């Protein structure tokens, strides 16, 4: 049986171009793959832009115990045995949005055109469109073994970085002379 995989942001912050550049090509080609048109709002991977200008691609974590599946009252989120991840059965989805509210990562959304819930489905087992197109090569389809070490380092970095993020000011504060004036 094929191993379970999930899309992971495998950034290399020690390289100048080893982080997300905010080009949005992953979104564009994900939507092209799934709906035959270009539309980030219909992509299963989204680039979140933080107010500091940092871009981060986020997509389904393929949870072991999916909150979206637990929240669905219509059995519309089902296990795909081949991929070992849950996928949306659009014939059963009623667009109620319960899964959208339940996902702790804000990943599963309602497609603005069909109104059905959409989430990453690993491109059905084919080579994922987002991984293929990313010019910075910061997306990977990782197995559980590959992802464990990545998760550990990421968690540790999150703890360390949270202080940095809490110290930074958002970009809306204005230009330097304004701040220098405040300092007196």
């Amino acid at each position: 049986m094929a191993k379970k995989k999930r899309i992971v942001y495998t950034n290399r912050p020690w390289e100048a171009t080893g982080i997300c550049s905010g080009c949005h090509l992953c979104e564009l080609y994900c939507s092209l793959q799934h709906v035959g048109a270009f539309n980030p709002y219909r992509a299963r991977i989204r680039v979140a832009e933080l107010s500091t200008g940092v871009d981060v691609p986020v997509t389904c974590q393929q949870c072991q115990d999916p909150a979206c599946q637990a929240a669905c009252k219509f059995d519309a989120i089902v296990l795909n045995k081949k991929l070992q991840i849950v996928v949306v059965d659009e014939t059963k989805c009623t667009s109620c949005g319960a899964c959208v509210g339940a996902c702790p990562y804000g990943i599963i959304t309602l497609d603005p055109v069909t109104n059905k819930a959409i989430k990453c489905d690993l491109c059905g087992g084919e080579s994922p469109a987002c991984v293929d197109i990313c010019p910075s090569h910061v997306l990977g389809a990782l197995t559980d073994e590959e992802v464990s070490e990545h998760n550990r380092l990421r968690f540790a970095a999150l703890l360390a970085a949270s202080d940095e993020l809490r110290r930074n000011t958002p970009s809306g504060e204005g230009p330097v002379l304004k701040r220098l004036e405040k300092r007196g």
Partner: protein
Amino acid sequence: MAKKNSYAGKILRVDLSTGAITTQELGPEYTDLFLGGRGIASKILYDEVPPEVEPFDPANRLIFSPGALIGTGVPAASRTTVAARSPLTNMHGDGHSGASWGAELKRAGYDVLIFQGKAERPVYLYIDNDTVEIRDASHLRGQFTSAVHSWARTTFGADVCTVSIGPAGENLVRLAGVYHNGADKGVSARCGLGAVMGSKNLKAIVTRGTGDIGVADIAALKAAFKDYLDTIAVDPYVPPATKYGTCRFMGHRVKFGIHGAENWRYGAYHWETLDPEIFRSDYQVKAGACLACPVRCRRDYRVRTGPYAGVTAKLEWETIARSMTCGVTNPEAVIAWSNQCNHYGLDTEGTGDTIAFAMECFENGILTEKETEGLRLEFGNEAAWLELTRRIALRQGELANILAEGTKRAAAKIGRGSERFAMHVKGGEMTAGDPRGMPVRAVSYATSTRGSDHLRSNPYIEEIMRPEEALQWFGSEEAADIKHGVRGKGKMLKFSEDFVTIGDILGLCKFAYYRSATFPYLYRKGVHLATRFYNACTGRNLSEEEMLMAGERAFNVEKAYNTRCGATRADDVIPRRFFEEPLLGGGPSGGAVVDLEKFDAILDEYYEDRRWDPDTGLPTRAGLERLGLNAIADDLEARGKLPVSDCGKVE
């Protein structure tokens, strides 16, 4: 059922005087010949803003026209055109930006957005797909571009895109730009577009668009994408862009010794502190990308220590170049200045040249310390430079109020012989590198349709052509000779202008398609692949010749517009300094001047190849009709703006 065409299909028109919001079909009268982006914008400007309408009249249009391929996954399809009659040149004006706002507009359902009229009080336009509303913006008055974008994200969600002006645009500073998605994503900086937006009391546009952008032939698109990646993988031009961002252009200026330092007097200069490697290792915090671009040459920098500690800014090459024009070579001060301009909403190009003008006036005693209100405007004085920039944005003080009018008007107002220090073409401040020592570059600044501009005319093509290619394409091996060549240069310039215009029409970035290490790669990206991408997305079947003609056509529309505003051959000149004063500082171009005979010879050949009358510089009926611009020819004739006898060759 997915859409099978990348056009949204509609023009959105907003009358800020009456409040009327209407849509009309984007029909074949626009798409057939003008395609999108700058092509459509220039045509609308011609049709709707006659010379009787001044730039600050409510009847001036502010046109937003994303390139035809915006919103698709075509690599580096990122650029949106903004156009209006320019308050700097009094003629055609446009600017572009690679930020994603244009794609959001198309997804909302509109290929073009036109503003006319003037609101009674500050307003913003709110677009959420079908919902389009003019809303009160009094709470945004005086806000920085960054603050407007932050407010929009907080109020409407993190996905919204914005267009905004800063205090500079609100104060009708003629050096104000139109900012996309805040201070650090992109700006349509040139031609005083921000002032036009301010003159309409339009502070911002907030946009969400969640519709599809279709594509006619997915397989053809993907094949062309692969071809594009294969091409840039072997084109030596591209990797430095990805590695250094646009800082990389320092290498070009050093190689030819054409810095334009200290108000365009020095070609060689002490540039070493601005080495791209220093920016990369000491200040870079992000290597970003414009929409859909794999080249990723945007750069954000942060200063961590020293007097400018804490400053973060998106910084691009021309800002570094214009810092040297003001004599500043401290990278931290340059980052601080970029930050300043980005938040206040200024164009660094025009602002840099204007302050450099004031600095040379100060150096020569034409401006005294009393008139500068205590600012010691010496080249390289960082504090005075930053402070004057702030004052210009706010029109604070008499000098700043004069400089806010741009170099040309400031010189006319100050007088006292200051005109010889005003470095502009048709009122548009000087850009890029010094033209002395590079004859076709000199002419290219003169022929640009929006004032001095290297992006319009792209003279770099001469640096990569081999003599046999020059012979084949432009009739003379001389065209490949940068310093001495004359024959073939005029034809090369026409080709280069038409070629680069394709990029602005389709929304393709020049750095990704219109610069290269060899001419075959250049043609492959900028014409061959561009045409394949357009056809794949729209389902049309343009030939490469037709695509080049689309570029030629848009350029001619702009030329006709400028002609109608009164421009003639007499306006196709560059500042006298370049003809009369040898380039200082030594270096590869040291001692050079622009040779007037060569300049005129190239210009003659250019006019002839363009099918414009060489004596007057006016377009001819034959030339215009060859491009399908019969109505424009009729209009010019009715206004007495065609040459008395047509000299153009008839096809």
